[in-house]
Structure formats: structure tokens, C-alpha cells
């Protein structure tokens, strides 16, 4: 869940009133946000780097707010304020409009066919006559970062570049070149680097190094040029320094390059809907043209408004409320979904704005109605569903047996299903290839290399960790191990095992043998060769392990 940090006083100023922490927490809760932490820059720095570093930092109160992972429209102060103001009926949701430039042609971004090998999509738009303040600028940069970390999947799906349009001149070309052929001065650097040099330069950059693997192994790297050959950016790594934006920037060219076009369009819509508020003509966005290698031209941003129709009865039936069609339309409008009854029965027409790409089904609209109604105002009811309960037979047997094994004087251990290869092979004198173990491809430590194929190592480790306990130790575990099994769709299955261990200064084989006899007695299996059970010597170290399941007739 993304967390957005906003300065409390700016937030309250934008909301047009102040709240106590409790009141604001309550408002967040109702709206589906969570006021996660109340802190300050000073406090954060002092916590992370020590008090000495924090001395000069601001002690303005910061609210850290958890935002649902699908609400990209709430990832910055502008969006949060708009969402909450509309929710509180203090503001009508703005209408976002795409406009042509005042005279002249729209900016054009031409995609060449070479990009297909690395990052085939791009979209673009212009924010014209924007006024930045330090706060707005910081929020603008922060939103890009939040989008990069979330919907852009750490820039792998989409990367955003924002540029001072007055420093560059279109048309722009989005192409891909061999790394040695790309050379420019990147952000915050004083000299030019080739792409090869940049990749090694950023190897040690705590922030940028995470993005290098996205293109590292590609034969060509993506790059955007202006008509004079100035590099705007080398997505998804870094922008050029030439077109960097500043507080004085008036016209912003935004490009998003992507491997997923749908997400690129959403990201662009988010950037422009959130910040067109500060344009000379608020909530208008100047369109740009993107020309594909096949000659096809698309106009962005899409800023698409979609209309859906649903019935008031549907919302009432799904939520469990009885509200009029008018009232449901009002509830939805408070969630930035402008709605009105069509007059045909209880039909409601709902307009989904470009800020709400999370609304993809009528159930999403229904949920918004429920949120606006207030989850905690809904009457709690008991469904009439009549069913008879059944236990899973294997679990029922396990539950019964566990009780009686404890009654037989053995104590239950509970060990991990994952372990190291060594635990189930080397330490038991086996080869890992003999174990039928499944293997994990991405374990962070050796503890998670395989799933256990036997319960014995866990019990032995429990004994080893409890050597200060008075003897004897009598332990058991009934749990699942995992074995490869080609007859299953996933190629593996669980197997329920029972393992017990007796640990004392004298061997006491008869004790563990006695427990086996008792277990068989509980399972109503007689000691007999053929139709019953018997034990025989085995060469394995794990000689005291028996399979409960297979020994049940």
C-alpha cells in the first residue's frame, strides 16, 4: 500500500478547515484511507540518521497517509484534497479537457521501429502556462516517484519524463540506439557520458541502480531526441540535464515510455489531471500527437470519460440498503463519479472520469456507493444460507490423533515446512536427488531452499534448541511434507506425516516402539505380518519415522 506524506497545514489550508488528529483519522477511515503516522521531517531524519543531522530540519507536522494500491488519483496532495472535498460535498469534481494549442501545430513525438526491441510504447502531453511554487514543484516530482514505484512497477512498465518545453524544440523522436551511440549530459552531471559510461556510473547510485536491469541486457537502449538532436531522456533510467524543469518552468512537456500501453495512458492521465490545476486555464491539457512506426497517429492524453448505466436496485441488492435512485446518484457523485437518474425506471447513468481507471466493473461503482453511504451505516444481517458442516477427513483424523498422542505423554512440536537442502539430505546421510524434494528458485537464505520431505530434522532441531530442558524429551509432530509427484497438475503433493522422538540419556527404543504400538491401537490396526502392521530394520538414520496415512487400513 503506497504511503503519501503531506504537510498537515498545507492539507488543512487546501481543505479549507482544520481537523484534530482524531477527526482527520476518522475522515480517512470513512473514505478508505489510513492516517498511518503523524511525524515531521525533523523526526524522520533524526530517526534514520541521528539527532545531529536533524537539527536544521523542518518540524512542520507531516501526515503519512496510506492510500489503496489502485487509487493513483490519491497519490499526491492535489488528488487527496480533490477527492476529500468532493466526498465532503464541498467541491464539484473538475472536468478535465484536452485542448489544441493556441495557434500552431501540437507537439509531435515520432516513434521509430527500433524501439520495438526494448520499449515500444510512448505517450505525451503538454501542461501550458503552469505556475509552480516550491510546494507544487515538490509534489509534482513526488507524484512521479509514487507512480514509478506503484503502477509503473519500478519503471519497468512505464517511465515518466518531464521537460521544460521552452528549452527544447519539437518534433521529438523516440528511438533506440546501441548504448555506445548515445551520448548526453544527464541530470545533475557536469559533463557528457555515453550510455555505456552512464550504466557503470549508476551502478553505485542507491536510487538509479535498481532500474538498470530493465534495459541492461538489451542490444539497444531507448532514447528521446528533440529536432536539434538534444537528448530529452534515456528512459527508464535518466533525463537529460538540458531540458530539466525548475520552479520557473512555464510549459512542461511530459512523455511516458512503456512496455504496457494501457498503463502508460493511465500514468499520463494522472500526471496531467493532478497538475493541470496550476495551468493558466485550470484543468486543461494541451494535446500532443504520437506517430507510430506504421504511420498511425494517436492524440494524447486520452482523458476519456466513460459512461456506464446501472440500476439503483443493483446497488441496493448488492450492498444491502434501500436507497432511492436519486440518493444513490448523489452518493456516487460524491465519489467523483458524476451520476444522474436517466428517468427510465431506476436506471442511473454514471460517468467515470479519467482519474478513476480503477473503476472497471459495475461492482466498483457499487462499492463507491457503499463507501459514500458509509460502510458502518449498513445494517448487519445474517444470511439464511443453510449448510451442514463437514470436516476434512484427514484433518479430523489428525486432530483426534494429536489429542491422544499428548495423552500418551508426548509434546507437540511445530516446525517450518521450508528448510535447507542440508537439513533433509546431507545431515540425514542422504543425497538431495534421492529425496523427491521440490526446490525453490528464489530463496533469500538457505533456510528456504526446499520444502521438507520428512518431519525428523525439525524435531531433532527442536531437541537441539532445548538442551537445557529436563530429560527425557518426548516430542511429536503431525504435519505435511511435500514430495514431487508427476501425477499432479503442479507436479507435487503434500503428504501428512507423523513423527515422534524420544530423547534421553539412555536409548529407550522400547519407548518409541511403545508409542508406535499405542498409535496403531488408536488407529485400530493389529500387529501382524500381512493384514496389520509390523516394523522392520531400515538402514536410514530416520529409522523412527512412520507414515500415518499409509498405515491406516
Amino acid at each position: 500500500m503506497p504511503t503519501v506524506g503531506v504537510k498537515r497545514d498545507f492539507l488543512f489550508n487546501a481543505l479549507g478547515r482544520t481537523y484534530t488528529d482524531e477527526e482527520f483519522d476518522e475522515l480517512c477511515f470513512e473514505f478508505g484511507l489510513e492516517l498511518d503516522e503523524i511525524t515531521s521531517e525533523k523526526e524522520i531524519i533524526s530517526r534514520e540518521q541521528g539527532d545531529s543531522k536533524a537539527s536544521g530540519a523542518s518540524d512542520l507536522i507531516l501526515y503519512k497517509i496510506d492510500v489503496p494500491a489502485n487509487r493513483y488519483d490519491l497519490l499526491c496532495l492535489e488528488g487527496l484534497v480533490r477527492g476529500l472535498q468532493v466526498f465532503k460535498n464541498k467541491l464539484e469534481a473538475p472536468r478535465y479537457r484536452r485542448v489544441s494549442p493556441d495557434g500552431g501545430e501540437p507537439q509531435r513525438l515520432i516513434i521509430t521501429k527500433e524501439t520495438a526491441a526494448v520499449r515500444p510504447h510512448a505517450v505525451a502531453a503538454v501542461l501550458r502556462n503552469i505556475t509552480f511554487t516550491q510546494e507544487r514543484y515538490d509534489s509534482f516530482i513526488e507524484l512521479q516517484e509514487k507512480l514509478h514505484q506503484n503502477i509503473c512497477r519500478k519503471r519497468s512498465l512505464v517511465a515518466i519524463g518531464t521537460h521544460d518545453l521552452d528549452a527544447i524544440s519539437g518534433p521529438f523522436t523516440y528511438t533506440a540506439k546501441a548504448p555506445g551511440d548515445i551520448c548526453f549530459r544527464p541530470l545533475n552531471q557536469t559533463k557528457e557520458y555515453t550510455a555505456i559510461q552512464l550504466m557503470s556510473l549508476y551502478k553505485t547510485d542507491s536510487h538509479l541502480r535498481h532500474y538498470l536491469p530493465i534495459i541492461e541486457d538489451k542490444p539497444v537502449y531507448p532514447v528521446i531526441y528533440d529536432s536539434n538532436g538534444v537528448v530529452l531522456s534515456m528512459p527508464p533510467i535518466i533525463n537529460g540535464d538540458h531540458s530539466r524543469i525548475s520552479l520557473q518552468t512555464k510549459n512542461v512537456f511530459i512523455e511516458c515510455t512503456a512496455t504496457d500501453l494501457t498503463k502508460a495512458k493511465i500514468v499520463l492521465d494522472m500526471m496531467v489531471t493532478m497538475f493541470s490545476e496550476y495551468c493558466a486555464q485550470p484543468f486543461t491539457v494541451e494535446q500532443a500527437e504520437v506517430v507510430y512506426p506504421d504511420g498511425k497517429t494517436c492524440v494524447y492524453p486520452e482523458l476519456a470519460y466513460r459512461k456506464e448505466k446501472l440500476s439503483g436496485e443493483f446497488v441496493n441488492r448488492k450492498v444491502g440498503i434501500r436507497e432511492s435512485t436519486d440518493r444513490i446518484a448523489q452518493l456516487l457523485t460524491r465519489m467523483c463519479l458524476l451520476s444522474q437518474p436517466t428517468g427510465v425506471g431506476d436506471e442511473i447513468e454514471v460517468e467515470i472520469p479519467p482519474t478513476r481507471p480503477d473503476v472497471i466493473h459495475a461492482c466498483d461503482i457499487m462499492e463507491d456507493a457503499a463507501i459514500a453511504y458509509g460502510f458502518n451505516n449498513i445494517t448487519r444481517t445474517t444470511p439464511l444460507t443453510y449448510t451442514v458442516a463437514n470436516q476434512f477427513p484427514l484433518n479430523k483424523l489428525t486432530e483426534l490423533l494429536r489429542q491422544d498422542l499428548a495423552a500418551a505423554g508426548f509434546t507437540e512440536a511445530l516446525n517450518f515446512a521450508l528448510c535447507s537442502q542440508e537439513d533433509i539430505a546431507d545431515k540425514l546421510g542422504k543425497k538431495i536427488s534421492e529425496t523427491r524434494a521440490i526446490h525453490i528458485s528464489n530463496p533469500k537464505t538457505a533456510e528456504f531452499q526446499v520444502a521438507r520431505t520428512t518431519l525428523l530434522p525439525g524435531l531433532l532441531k527442536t531437541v537441539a534448541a532445548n538442551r537445557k530442558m529436563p530429560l527425557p524429551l518426548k516430542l511429536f509432530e503431525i504435519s505435511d511434507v511435500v514430495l514431487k509427484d508427476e501425477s499432479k497438475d503442479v507436479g507435487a503433493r503434500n503428504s501428512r506425516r507423523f513423527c515422534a522422538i524420544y530423547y534421553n540419556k539412555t536409548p529407550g527404543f522400547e519407548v518409541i516402539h511403545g508409542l508406535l504400538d499405542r498409535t496403531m491401537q488408536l488407529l485400530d490396526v493389529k500387529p501382524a505380518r500381512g493384514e496389520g502392521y509390523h516394523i522392520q530394520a531400515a538402514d536410514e538414520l530416520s529409522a523412527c519415522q512412520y507414515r500415518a496415512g499409509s498405515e491406516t487400513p
Partner: protein
Amino acid sequence: MADVLARRSCGLGHVRFEKTTSHPASIGASSMADTGVLEALLQRVEKADGGVDSLAAAAGLGVDHQVIVGAVKSLQALGDVISAELRSSKHWELTEEGTETAEQGSHEARVFSSIPAEGLPQAELMKLSFGKIGFSKAMSNNWIRVDKSHEGGPRIFRTVESIQDQVREKLLLVKRGDAAQLDEKEKNELKKRKLLAEVTVKSYWIAKGSSFSTTITKQETELTPEMIATGSWKEKKFKPYNFEAMGVAPDCGHLHPLMKVRTQFRQIFLEMGFSEMPTNNFIESSFWNFDSLFQPQQHPARDQHDTFFLSDPALAQEFPPEYLERVKKVHSEGGYGSQGYKYDWKIEEARKNILRTHTTAVSARMLYKLAQQEKFTPVKYFSIDRVFRNETLDATHLAEFHQIEGVVADYGLTLGDLMGVLHQFFTKLGITKLRFKPAYNPYTEPSMEVFSYHEGLKKWVEVGNSGVFRPEMLLPMGLPEDVSVIAWGLSLERPTMIKYGINNIRELVGHKVNLQMVYDSPICRLDS
């Protein structure tokens, strides 16, 4: 025998009888030996007017005070023979150095007396054990002088004929028990010189009890078959039980606390008419774990950083082919009233085997199976089993934990129904104050986080997650359109840690648990 004695108050003093330390023979022996002391003490009490102090009694009888304390405990165990009231008093006592000084004189006095009339070389004096301290004190008392210009080095001479060793006299006063004759300043001066110390002494004020007697009847510790046969028990006096000591722990096995809590949750679901799902399949395909739940293939939960993928067996085979097509379509193009996610859905991604990240994968399989029935029948399902996350580990997060999940599928279920079922479920856990926060889950809409009011913390804490499964998940399975499926989940470890007051999850599960914790954990009643 040791076990019997452990329940009885035997012998002397404070001996607390632990299983491992009790030694019946020695207890018996010391008990016998002190009968004389007991009777002597009783005689003193009889003669005294109003009672005696145990310290005075010890001095009078010429025994250690601890012996008297032991005698008091023994007499108390016999019933109301005596009454003993614990008192504490402060008094002054000589330190080790103080005792030496009282015997041999103060350092300065010893310096004075070691100097002959013809004087003593200073170096000589300093060799004596009391030389250094005694010299400076004697100097400040003006008892001695140093002649630095004396031939053969500095030499020390007496300046007065005789001295009075007041320090020694004061210490002797204290030794005789007459510390009261010294004023506070004097006592503190001596305390500073580490010659005196103020100590707290505990003693008993011993007086006659309601059944006082100067003779002691020997008490039996055990009722034997012989006593019953001969009838001699009627004449015997029996020692009362010592209810202060712990009993002997029974020789038994113990169930693991987490499993005890699991049993209770199972019980709750069964009481509510929920059937148990077969969740004994830790290995799951990405298809059933994610795709079937309408969780898009780029979702962060499907990242290497969050999920354990398998290298062997790496890929799953065989999916229901028509269902697979429908899942692919709803992800990439939409359908069933949905816009879909509009991305290039890949079978390769769906085939990747993983360690399941939630038991909802099993719920998906069960709901798909339900949809294949000729006629839909309402169901209520539950499961409690292990799930796996490749996450960063901390005091409350492990790579594997147990997920509790409940699912209800029926025609026309509402969000109000989900809240009602949750209310019933949590009431059985003893939690009645619930509220719900809108949340986001890829496969439920609406989604609600469940919060309960924690009376101890005085705030709302999250206790579970819930929602209504999305149509994009249910309709491709083939479930009827008007069937709703509501579900909720929580972890088993968290309520268990709260219940048993455990702060670090490694103290609850895995081989590092302290078995004593397992032995000592009480039964689990979630609603109390």
C-alpha cells in the same frame, strides 16, 4: 517419600522443597535435633510477660538467630501454639575493620603507641599496616610531629605524653549494644570511616498462641495403612499440608499453543456450519493462486520479492482448457461487464509453480468445482493452513504462517450479510466491537478491513480482511450471475501471540521455541 514430604511443611526455616532438591533424610535429621530448642523457646515464652523478641531469645539461649527463626516456623506449623509477628528494626553494627579497631585500638592510637621516646624514622612507620592512615590522623590530632631535617631522614616524635583513644571507646560502646549513647554525628563520622554500618534486622515477636503448651507432640506426616488397621490414627497428630509449596507436575504430554488455537478456530467454523476445505497442497500454480482470482500478471504480489517460485517442478501442466481461455479473456480484454486489465496475458506466467501465498487459491479451486455442479448449491467453506511469502522477516513476520479463511457462496448475499457473518464470527472470539474500513484487494470488490476496538490499547486495531469476490473471478468459473461469494481471512499467529502474550513469532513457531512455554501454556478459550 520425597513427593509426600514436598507437600508438608517439614523441618526448619525457609527451605522451599523443589522436586530436584528435596532430600528427606536430612530434613528428618534436622527436625529431630531441634526439639530441644523448640521446648527451650516455649519455656522462655511461657515465662515472659507479653512475649519475647527472637533476637533476645537467640542471645539468651546462646544459639544463632536463624535457629530461632527456624523454630518459630516449625511451631507455627503445629497450629496456634505461638503467635509470631515479624518486626524489623535498624541498628548499628561494627564492620570488620570496626571490630579490629575495637580490639586493637584505632590506627592513630596504634601509631602513637608504636613510637618510642627517641622517635621513629618515618619510612619505618609507613611499613606498618596501620601506618599510613594512622599517621595522618595522629598528625591532625597533634599527637605526633615530623622532624624532616633529622639526620638519616625524616623522623617522628611524640608531642604529648598520653592520649585517649576515643574512636575505640565509641566502637566498644556500640559493640556492647549501647549505640544509643552516641549522637548521630558521631555515628555518621564512624560510618564514613567504614568502622560502623547501619543494618536492618528482622526478628519475630513471639507470644503465646491460643493452644499454647510447653511440650511438643511429634506430628505424623503421613497416614499409613497400619495406622488405619490399628486405629492408632485417632491418637496421632498430623502435620498440616503446606499449601504454599507447588505440587508435583503430572507426567504428561502437551499440545502446541498455536495448534490449540487452531483447534478453537476450527470449532468455531464448525459451529457456524462451515465445511473444511482440503488445503493440503502447498505447491500451487500461479494460475490458481493469482490468475483465477483476477490478480493481474504484473501485480507486485507476483514479484520475485514477494513470492517463492519453484525451480523444480517449475511449471504446472493441465488447466481446465475452456476455463483457462475465459480467464485469459477477462484479464486481457474484459467481459462479464468488465473492462478487463487490457494487457497481454501470458500462459507462461500462469504456469509458474509457486508456494501458495494464500489459501484463497484453494477457495478458487473449490468455487470452480462448485460451478461445475449441475445445479448450484449454497456452500460455506473454511480452512486454516500454511501459506508462504518471500518477504522481509521481522519479529512478527515469518516466511510461512497460517491463514484462516471463511467463504460463503449463495444467491443474493449482500455487503450487510458479510458484516453480519463477520460479527457472528468475531463474537465467538470474544470480540463484539467491530467497524469496517474500505480497502483494496485485487479479487474482492467491495473490500473491507475489519477493525476491533482494543480495550487495552484504547484504539481500533485491524483484525482481518474481507470482501465480496469480483464477478471477473466468479463468472469465468461458471457460477450463476446472481450468486455472490463473500469471504474473509486473518492470520492464526497474531491472535495466538496476543492470547499467549508472545512478542516474537520465533518464540511461538519453529524449532527455536522454548518447550517450557509449550508445557506451561494454558488451554485456549478464545471468548474469555
